[in-house]
């Protein structure tokens, strides 16, 4: 019977848990900890959500003048290439 990881040990390996990069044996220990520890379960859940909101965030806008300048610069570039 392996010892339950401490919360500190679990948190140090949180990325391996979230990114699924731990080897199967260690993964089982991480799973075991999170199934026994409600606090770490909450940390896992809210960290996952944190990453997801940033990943899923579609930028809303770009200032009009920025896009206008960009398109003008491209037009010049394209024209210069004939």
């Amino acid at each position, binding site marked *: 019977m392996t010892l339950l990881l401490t919360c500190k040990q679990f948190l140090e390996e949180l990325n391996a848990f979230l990114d699924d990069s731990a080897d199967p044996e260690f993964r089982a220990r991480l799973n075991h900890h999170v199934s026994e520890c409600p606090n770490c379960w909450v940390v896992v859940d*809210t960290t996952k959500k944190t990453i997801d909101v*940033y990943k899923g965030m*579609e930028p809303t806008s770009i200032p009009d003048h920025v896009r206008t300048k960009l398109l003008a610069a491209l037009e010049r570039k394209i024209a210069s290439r004939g």
Partner: protein
Amino acid sequence: MTESVSKPDASDELSLVERARTGDSGAFTELVKRYDKKIYRLAKHITQNDEDAEDVLQETFLKAYEHLDGFQGNSKFYTWIVRIGVNEALMKLRKRKSSRTVSLDEEVDTGEEMIVREIAVWDGNPEDQYSKEEFHELLNEALDTLKPAFREVFTLRDIAELSTEETAERLNISIAAVKSRLLRARLQLREKLTRLFKKKGDDAFAYL
């Protein structure tokens, strides 16, 4: 008929690139309009400066146009252009930093950044509780308060979705540093967002 309707994004994108290569400027403009917001946001997170972000945006698309032949078509156009954007933004940042003493590889990993205080579940889907603009503003503000070394790693790994190895290479830091900074960045952002999005009255006790 060469148009495919089954996978509009990938195939239609490839045909836009093909047309742009043969000199169809409208096709390239279409690609620009699809991704300029994403590149601009990324550039802002990395450079923390509107003017620099604007320069990075222009340089990224001008370079992409110039090197369109280098796009192989076996990855998505965004996967290709985001790497150009990241490079341009980091170059800009290094130029700015060269006049100061801060190095990109400064030692920043102290234990205190691993603190977890807020242990509370989020109140439903936070996106539903704010307007899109407000929600994005909150996310941007939270990210912008991280130390640059943490923000850069988070932006490259979790927003631009570069691999750990690529992130290490581009930031010129070790893989171990990427991993450690990413962990701290994620935990600090989690902390900040939990403060905003937690279920009221659902505070547990802090640990660690």
